[in-house]
């Protein structure tokens, strides 16, 4: 037999002499891993169900928008309207994925394994937030791209029409970015405070819902100015107010307070990010 002479060699332990890439590479690795985690990739089939239902629904809405447009010849749902329509239900996506990214690590006490590697605590926090923002943006950007392809074929003005369509798409993609940035900053911060996924999910939805009645009361009580400004308490209305100013969609009366809405949004995001970084800096492992 040919194998009779074969000897199995235990080559023993081999020292590693290859390159050791530093902190930046470690952060990128964690980012890619987290992005995969967000969609349940590399994990059980059960973990994939929910993200893919959400992705499926987002694409379905986009497909309907394309179908309506080719049938009627008019733009029934614009890129911006699509973001408004799908962005709010995406709150549920956030409520499931943010705890998956952050609370799960707290619950399983994985952080000592990360913090004992060439990764700083702030890196971890920012990478997790970045992965959440990217995941949410991708869920919106994919269908927007589908709508763009459908739109280019539906319009009849040739190259100039296609260019016009493209600039509209860029508007939609940036608006999706605003949604992803503001929603994720809040959601990841809230999730980082709870180690139980269910608690984190409920808290995220709660934070978004609790502002709605507050705004409602202020709308009834206040004068014009209070009405125009109080909406920014609700993150969803803050985003929509911002879109009124940036994209001139005229869906909401914010008068001349556009810059105030922008300032509020910047303040909200920087506040959440600072608290998130502080949270991980203070965490004892």
């Amino acid at each position, binding site marked *: 037999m040919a194998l009779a002479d074969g000897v199995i060699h235990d080559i*023993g*332990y*081999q*020292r*590693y002499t*290859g*390159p*050791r*890439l*530093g*902190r930046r*590479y*470690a952060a990128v*690795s*964690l980012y890619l*891993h987290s992005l995969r985690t967000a969609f349940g990739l*590399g*994990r*059980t089939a059960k*973990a994939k169900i929910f993200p893919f239902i959400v992705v499926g629904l987002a694409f379905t809405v986009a497909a309907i928008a394309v179908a309506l447009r080719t049938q009627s010849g008019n733009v029934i749902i614009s890129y911006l309207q699509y973001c408004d329509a799908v962005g709010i239900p995406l709150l549920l996506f956030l409520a499931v994925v943010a705890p998956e990214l952050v609370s*799960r*690590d707290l619950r*399983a*006490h*994985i952080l*000592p*394994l*990360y*913090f*004992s*590697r*060439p*990764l*700083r605590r702030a890196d971890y926090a920012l990478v997790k937030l970045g992965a959440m923002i990217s995941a949410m943006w991708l869920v919106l950007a994919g269908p927007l791209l589908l709508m763009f392809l459908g739109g280019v074929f539906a319009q009849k003005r040739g190259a100039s029409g296609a260019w016009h369509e493209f600039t509209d798409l860029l508007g939609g993609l940036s608006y999706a970015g605003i949604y992803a940035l503001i929603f994720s900053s809040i959601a990841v911060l809230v999730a980082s405070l709870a180690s139980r996924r269910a608690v984190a999910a409920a808290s995220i939805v709660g934070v978004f819902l609790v502002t709605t009645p507050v705004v409602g009361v202020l709308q009834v009580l206040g004068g014009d100015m209070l009405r125009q400004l109080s909406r920014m308490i609700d993150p969803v209305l803050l985003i929509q107010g911002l879109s009124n100013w940036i994209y001139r969609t005229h869906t909401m009366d914010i008068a001349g307070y556009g810059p105030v809405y922008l300032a509020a949004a910047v303040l909200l995001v920087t506040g959440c990010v600072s608290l998130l970084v502080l949270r991980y800096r203070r965490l004892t*492992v």
Partner: protein
Amino acid sequence: MALIQTQALTKRYPRVTALDALTVDVEPGIIGLIGANGAGKSTLIKILLGLLEPTSGAVRVLGFDPGRDAETIRARVGYMPEHECLPPDLVAAELVTHLARTSGLPRTAARERASEALRHVGLYEERYRQVGGYSTGMKQRVKLAQALVHDPDLLLLDEPTNGLDPAGRDAMLALIHRIGTEFGISVVVCSHLLGEVERICDSVVAIDGGRLLRADRVSAMTVERDLLAVEVDEGTDELAARLGQMGLPVTRDGRLLVVPLESDDTYDLIMGAVAALDLPLHRLDQRRHRVAELFAAAPRPAAGPARQEVGHGAG
């Protein structure tokens, strides 16, 4: 170059002092870090990794200062935490690969070395199973594999035998011994059981209440011999007398007779004595030293408010 050097290292919390002016120099090899629960072992490990900042004093690991070069140290050190720290829904091979990349290994190298590390800890066949389905012993091995995967110069193992049955403990200790001798990696093993680690260690650092009790080569500590514990259901006094006549310095400890283990012949002598008296032998086993026993003879430093816990009975 000294592996680890500390100079009057102190860590104070609002209510306790975890480390109290600890000064010690550790040479490469396998080092046992011995102390009761709450003696400051984990605090010291976390300071070495730069995870905690000392209140005062100086510390150097592999020649670097954890306060300033924490990332350099962490790239060259492997850490196995005391408590469970693995995500249950990940496959072991994937988890260890991911952590290897977080340690700075390129993608292919990370995958290869993850397989190798899991093979070295004895989990090659099971590496594509989810960690959540593993036994405690297997989880401990995964924890060791992730600490080993990036080929560190120093391994810091916090109570690696925690939760393992006697066979699992022996296997884990044998593995650590192999890593220290064959792999050429220095290892610091934390334990509250001296008897457990002295078998595999070159040197021992014992701390209590955050203070250094003793730091020495194991060879210099052999004065403390192993002991045999004998328990018979009846006739303890007769057996004690008999063993005394045979020249064995026997002492009583409750229902137990304790005899120093001179050589393997001691077993035979005791068995012979029990058989000759026709006594029902309940147990005859080697007694593991506990830190408190080893240092009971030595003058203890006064236990100040620094003491978090007096749990010397652990073991």
